[in-house]
């Protein structure tokens, strides 16, 4: 009897909690639509976006290899999924992850720009979210600005903080929390130059930055929790924290490099690299 009642209450409570802020109908995840920004400024933003993506494509080559390329694809998919999860920030207002800081920390800044850009492109093409003529504006605001600010601040903080997982979490949080209002500020700037409507820029700036400070807290929580989770399970897969795992890699590469350089009898190079389980595994393990 008791055991029956407890789950029932939980369920009812959960339902009641969910109802107020979810009609369940539309996941509104609205980026800058068509018609907010005039054509010349949209084109200019598009040119900046193209240039940014081109630089990112070049730089990403250094960040991506056979193992990190799939991780980057999965990170983009995760950012897409997380962007669907609008969370309430104030009365009648919600926010969602932008994801630039998160992607940059996980897979590198250049690849991070590409991750968010791919998400924005697919949202515009598949889900009619974010105007196609505003794609440049959206890439500038949500991919370029968030990665530049977020990842820049993250690396800066890690330089002064002690090398520990807690520092990585703290730096992720701070970087993400700052990146969102910066994105809002840049939108305001774009609006000031090319807005199609005649609204006081001061009012837009105050409202945009104000609400995005709150959204930034949500962004920061998601970013810090995600980065910390991956760091806990696979520290070697967090690009932004690769300094943390370096001592460990040095020790390992040290033993491995020692083998070919030292004794010729261990020059089972390819086999040693491939590390087939039937191969000379015991000798490697004993080192």
């Amino acid at each position, binding site marked *: 009897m008791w055991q029956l009642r407890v789950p029932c209450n939980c369920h009812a409570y959960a339902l009641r909690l969910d109802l107020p802020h979810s009609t369940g109908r539309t996941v509104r995840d609205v980026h800058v639509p068509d018609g907010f920004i005039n054509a010349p400024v949209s084109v200019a933003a598009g040119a900046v976006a193209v240039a940014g993506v081109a630089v990112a494509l070049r730089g990403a080559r250094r960040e991506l290899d056979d193992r990190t390329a799939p991780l980057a694809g999965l990170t983009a998919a995760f950012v897409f999924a997380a962007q669907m999860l609008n969370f309430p920030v104030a009365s009648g207002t919600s*926010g969602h992850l932008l994801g630039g800081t998160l992607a940059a920390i996980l897979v590198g800044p250049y690849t991070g720009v590409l991750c968010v850009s791919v998400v924005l492109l697919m949202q515009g093409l598949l889900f*009619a979210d974010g105007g196609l003529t505003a794609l440049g504006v959206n890439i500038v605001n949500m991919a370029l600005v968030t990665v530049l600010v977020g990842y820049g601040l993250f690396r800066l903080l890690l330089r002064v903080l002690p090398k520990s997982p807690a520092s990585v979490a703290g730096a992720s949080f701070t970087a993400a929390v700052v990146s969102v209002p910066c994105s809002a500020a840049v939108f305001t700037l774009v609006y000031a130059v090319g807005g199609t409507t005649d609204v006081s820029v001061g009012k837009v700036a105050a409202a945009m930055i104000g609400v995005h400070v709150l959204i930034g807290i949500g962004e920061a929580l998601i970013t810090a929790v995600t980065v910390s989770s991956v760091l806990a399970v696979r520290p070697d897969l967090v690009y932004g924290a690769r300094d943390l795992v370096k001592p460990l890699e040095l020790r390992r590469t040290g033993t491995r490099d020692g083998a070919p350089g030292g004794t010729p009898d261990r020059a089972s190079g390819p086999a040693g690299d491939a590390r087939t389980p039937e191969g000379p595994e015991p000798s490697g393990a004993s080192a």
Partner: protein
Amino acid sequence: MTTKTTAGRPVKRSTKRFFAAFLLVSLVLAGIVSYYASSSPDGLEKVAADKGIDSKEKDHSLKDSPFSDYGVKGVDDSRLSGGLAGVVGVGAVLLVGGGLFWVVRRRGGTPEHGRDGAQGSAPAREPAGSEDA
């Protein structure tokens, strides 16, 4: 390469398992949890409506696409419609993004070597690889 083992196989498998878990989390978030997301307007939309920025907003040119507004046209159940759209989106982003990253990636190193090499000793190998990216 990782903290765990010295043999290649287990390390590789654990990376695959991590990737699978990561994908599963994304699918669950987009396919199931998204139903419970707030449907209030987001920051930009709210400010735009309050201040009147949106008076000249135009309809999206693809607003009649089969997945527009994160639903699947023809599926009436909103939970199913939104969930399917989320799963489709995760798949599409993974395919396009993953494909792009796979094409762009640095070649020439074995997967085992990739990350180790990236720490500094890789460039020696890089020019030898094909530059067909």
